């Protein structure tokens, strides 16, 4: 399976190097800026990694959903789509967990578990929504555009628009703990799992 991810990541081209660049930039942001606010770091972490998850997931299944060879490629994918997604999440969480350890090391008032839980569910829902959009439209540019529109809208209104579902924790005042993240994480998880079922229904 590692072989498979290695080869699939080769087909990602320049996108493969983006998480590395983000990782280095985030490390600089965590350690390089004095008097930094932990909430700003968390917001930035979400706003960089979540779109990346979307794009990576889209390109991970580009051969299946975006090349017009769906029926044929499905012969190859039907037994291992979950395995690929799980492996992808494991690989993705290595830099994410490293950054969270770095944040914990840098900021005293930081709690690791709530942010891990939140990030995991955010990755899940964003990956699943990307896949649904890709399966529906069959053109990778449409989900990418919609995802960036959503993130721009969330950022512009800072998570206060009543017309949008908010997957992000965009709060610079309150500290991030179990109490104020659990409902968001649970909702993200629920929608993520339901979304995955919908995605499977769409492609089978």
């Amino acid at each position, binding site marked *: 399976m590692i072989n498979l991810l290695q080869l699939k990541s080769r*087909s990602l081209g320049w996108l493969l190097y983006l998480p590395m660049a983000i990782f280095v930039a985030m490390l600089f942001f965590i350690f390089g800026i004095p008097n930094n606010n932990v909430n700003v770091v968390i917001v930035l972490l979400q706003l960089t990694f979540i779109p990346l998850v979307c794009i990576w997931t889209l390109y991970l299944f580009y051969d299946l959903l975006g090349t017009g060879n769906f029926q044929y490629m499905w012969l190859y994918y039907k037994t291992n789509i979950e395995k690929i997604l799980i492996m992808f999440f494991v690989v993705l969480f290595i830099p994410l967990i490293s950054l969270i350890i770095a944040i914990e090391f840098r900021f005293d008032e930081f709690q690791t578990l709530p942010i891990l839980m939140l990030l995991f569910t955010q990755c899940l829902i964003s990956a699943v929504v990307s896949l649904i959009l890709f399966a529906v439209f069959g053109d990778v540019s449409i989900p990418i555009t919609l995802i960036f529109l959503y993130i721009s809208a969330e950022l512009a209104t800072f998570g206060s628009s009543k017309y949008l579902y908010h997957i992000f924790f965009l709060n610079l005042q309150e500290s991030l703990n179990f109490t104020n993240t659990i409902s968001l994480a649970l909702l993200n998880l629920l929608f993520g799992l339901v979304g995955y079922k919908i995605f499977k229904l769409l492609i089978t």
Partner: protein
Amino acid sequence: MITIKNLSKTIRGNKIIDNLNLKLKGITGIIGPNGAGKSTLMKIIASVEKGDKGSEIIFNNTSNEPIRIGYLPQNFSIYPNLTVYEVLKLLATLKGNFDSAHIEYLIELFNLANYKNKKMKELSGGTHRRVGIAQALLNKPNYLIIDEPTAGLDIIECIKLRNILLTISEKVEDIIISSHLPEDIEYICNHIVVIEKGQKRFEGSLSEMIQRSENLSYEATIELNDLQKLNVIGEIVKIDKISDKLVKVKFITRKPIADHQLYKPVQPGFLGSYVSLLKGEVVP
């Protein structure tokens, strides 16, 4: 042998395949004009698509080995940024049967050693198609289904690919090839199926096919200006230019020919038989 019983396929109300009953054996060539339903039939045999209710596909496997199907679709264009070796490795891993020795064997068999480390986007159409057939053999199939093997290839590449298909025919139980090019079928196949508008026009050997249209093929030497008149009588299948004004024409017609001095009966050949079948009646 693959037995197809009562196969129909309806897509959005259109009957793409209409009650097909076939017995495919050896190297079977499925030929028909564009839109005949060949690719749909190939997809159904390859289990990529399902037929309508009541349709049956039976693989009469003579060996004790499990049924493994290798399939090359008409449009095989994936992983432009991966090398030939990487594509084969990736697809084998996805199928769960990665065997580097087998991949090396396929690279050798399809004469791909010089292209092993070249990206897919850098390959010519013929090499691309060879990689496509190699990937269909990754799971060591006993049934090989190839949709339009020579689509978009030049004549030299077509000949190379036909030779490769003949070579691999010994390694699999049955090969099913679809094509709209009569040359592909005539050169490679020992069992022929002609379909048009989703219906069977003919099934049998090449000699049986030629026999069926034996009295329908004629040859004539006429003036170039008279070509249009001949089109009214029948279907022209071959034109050889004799001089600036004169041409030798081979044509197929079901109309009675009176002037046998001008129109000489000849052997129809595969192309002639094929054309006459398309103009003929539906075989139940």
